[in-house]
């Protein structure tokens, strides 16, 4: 039975769905990375994802417009990000605790809205695969990489884009400076609070899109608590990827491949207890984090509020 895993179709299947499953990790973790590089730890990613997932799903259900769905997710994500910013930057609440609050809020709110507004699980028509002309016809490669949906392509484009913004723009320079030494940035006229509001809001938007990618592109359905810890794994991926976009890409792919593998194990009916298979990604999270703890430290000002004295 195990050998069923090693046929060409299955391997292509695993890699192709692995790429697809990496999508929510990429959006959420890249967003979280921006926040952390500027010194804000957002543990509310999971909650932001759940709300984004619900809102996008709801809009598709009512309007059948995918564009409106994504715009709505962006709006909700921005609001959640701004709220997180207000609490941690303006009111200077402890970031970790505030994040847990936003997680619980997002989870509760999405549940409540789902029960009040919809109630029964209904499938929708979400983003469908787009075959890229020519590239999509290449055997194996085409199937794996170039017959995915729009949100998958955008997620992978986000990685080099994030790298570019962080390393080649004045905004990126400000973000890095604010996360390492906000006093120094402030003394040079950089508006520390503004930079942090920006990254936290961006993080909210990307987390929300991450949730939407689950509900209107990958699964085309909304279920209560459907993110199942992916938001927390996204936070872990930022550490795993040493706060770098391409490191995060590597981590996201590792996790999603393991996830895909475990799904295929269940599909093929390979006699490994399914509970064990489902646990794989989480066990991996813990292992990877333990091992990566020895690697470089994060931004020096991470979790530290900034206030100019006097």
């Amino acid at each position, binding site marked *: 039975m195990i050998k069923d895993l090693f046929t060409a179709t299955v391997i292509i299947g695993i890699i192709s769905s692995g790429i697809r499953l990496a999508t929510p990790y990429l959006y959420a973790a890249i967003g979280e990375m921006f926040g952390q590089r500027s010194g804000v730890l957002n543990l509310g990613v999971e909650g932001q994802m759940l709300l984004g997932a619900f809102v996008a799903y709801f809009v598709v259900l009512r309007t059948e417009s995918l564009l409106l769905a994504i715009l709505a997710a962006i709006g909700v994500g921005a609001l959640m990000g701004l709220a997180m910013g207000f609490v941690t930057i303006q009111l200077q609440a402890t970031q970790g605790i505030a994040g847990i609050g936003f997680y619980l809020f997002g989870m509760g709110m999405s549940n409540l809205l789902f029960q009040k507004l919809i109630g029964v699980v209904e499938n929708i028509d979400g983003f469908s695969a787009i075959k890229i002309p020519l590239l999509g016809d290449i055997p194996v490669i085409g199937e794996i990489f170039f017959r995915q949906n729009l949100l998958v392509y955008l997620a992978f484009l986000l990685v080099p884009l994030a790298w570019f913004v962080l390393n*080649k*723009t*004045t*905004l*990126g*320079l*400000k973000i*890095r*400076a604010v996360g*390492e*030494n906000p*006093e*120094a*940035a*402030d*003394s*040079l*006229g*950089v508006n520390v609070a503004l930079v942090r509001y920006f990254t936290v809001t961006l993080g909210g938007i990307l987390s929300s899109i991450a949730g939407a990618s689950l509900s209107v592109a990958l699964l085309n359905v909304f279920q209560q608590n459907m993110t199942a810890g992916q938001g927390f794994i996204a936070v872990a991926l930022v550490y795993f990827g040493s706060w770098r976009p391409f490191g995060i890409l590597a981590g996201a792919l590792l996790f999603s491949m393991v996830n895909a593998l475990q799904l295929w194990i269940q599909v093929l009916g390979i006699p490994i207890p399914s509970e064990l298979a489902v646990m794989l990604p989480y066990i991996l999270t813990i292992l990877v984090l333990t091992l990566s703890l020895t690697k470089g430290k994060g931004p*020096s000002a991470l979790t530290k509020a900034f206030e*100019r*004295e*006097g």
Partner: protein
Amino acid sequence: MEIRADQTNKTPFTSLQMRNVCKRFPGVLANCEVDFDVVSGEVHALLGENGAGKSTLMKVLYGMYKLDDGEIILNGQPVTIQNPTVAINHGIGMIHQHFMLVPTLTVAENVALGLPSSKGPLTDLDVVSERIVQLASTYNLKIDPSALIWQLSVGQQQRVEIIKALYRGASLLLLDEPTAVLTPQEVDELFLIMRQMTSDGYGLGFISHKLHEVVEISDRITVLRNGRKIGTQLTSAVTKQTLANWMVGREITFITSNDKMDQGEVRIDMQAVSCPSQRGTEGLRHIDLQIHSGEIVGLAGVSGNGQLELAEVVTGLRPIKEGRVLLDGEDITGLIPGQVTEKGLSYVPEERMKDGMIRDFNISENLILREHHKWPFSKKGFLRIPYINEHTDKLVEQFRIKTPSRMTLAKNLSGGNIQKVLLARELSRSPRAIVAAQPTRGLDIGASEYVHEQLLEQRKLGTAILLISEDLDEIMALADRIAVIYEGQIMDVLPRLTATKEDLGLLMAGVHPGETIQN
């Protein structure tokens, strides 16, 4: 608001006046009716003890603190400086006491930070780098724009700070204790740069609490004490003694340990000690150092060259990789701090609030931290409160600790009194040896004097003392022999009577005097 990088459209600096400046913090009047002025082409020094309000005055000028009262007049025009951006746009630059650099970024990135770029949203580090090299060559500074800040020495980092200010078109530069972190040679180099800047028409405000430096570099001197201006004088018209009296508010004598002591046996004996540092790299390398009974050995060096590691190795706080430490011939290598304490070693740590005391404990409790579990402080696990109170009162009196009561929490004491509590605890137990790390850092002259007297007193009693200090003057005043540490190695040990500041400075920079310096 944007900072303008271009210096051409800034009006050249002619003069600055601060009049009647007042700045209050909760419970502290940091500046009170202070006048200070700088004209183009001069160094005006601001001299005063720690806490006199020097940094506050400069931070008000730089827009970091809002002034409560008073006015600032720049080039004849009254100005309001709400934040550093406004100050920068007025051509004011500041080199902070604690550098304002981002260690993980490059020199060029640090300089470019916060400035508009010639390439719009993209950074223009190539343009910035070119300009940095230009500016650096004007003042003979060697700076690699692509170097990461954390890889640079403290002296080099300071140059980056200067370049940063010049790049923003500063023509009035405020330097807050710029020499505190430098070797004597680096200080000379800094003074050269400062002289060239004044001859180019810059105005410089120079803060220091070191008399001889101020006298050497400045044209005029203003002395602050307790937030008030005591006086302003031409440097050429004032004596060191006057300045010192102005700073402290009374006659002071300069202490030195001129009396020759008969040295006893070797007390602390470090034999080829090596240990890793905080970062896991090599911290101490084959340290051989002996301290005799009745002797003060000063450990000089630029901070971060292994001083902390050395103190911790002797006191048992840090494991030793190779070598041995003996106390009176007895091997104490590998003992835990409690056991080392039992052997009669006392420690005055550099971070007195963090490593020496418990902030939220009162004086009584802090005084018995080391020996609370022993007779006469406790009996069968119960504290003997009446005895402890008596003990506290005795030490408070003996060590002249100024406190409302023995129940006052450590965190509510002033720096000088905190150090007195610590000394009281460490010295009252009649130690055989003392490791004192930066025992006067942050203290005012009066408290420093007191600490020095206490150390000399211990020396008379035959205690072996390792005095770790970054203040060469302190070491020259107290030590019998001076060891210089550089990158975890003892460069040399010189008798105080023959040591010169120049030689010590070279050693601190890792050069043996007489060796040719190669670049």
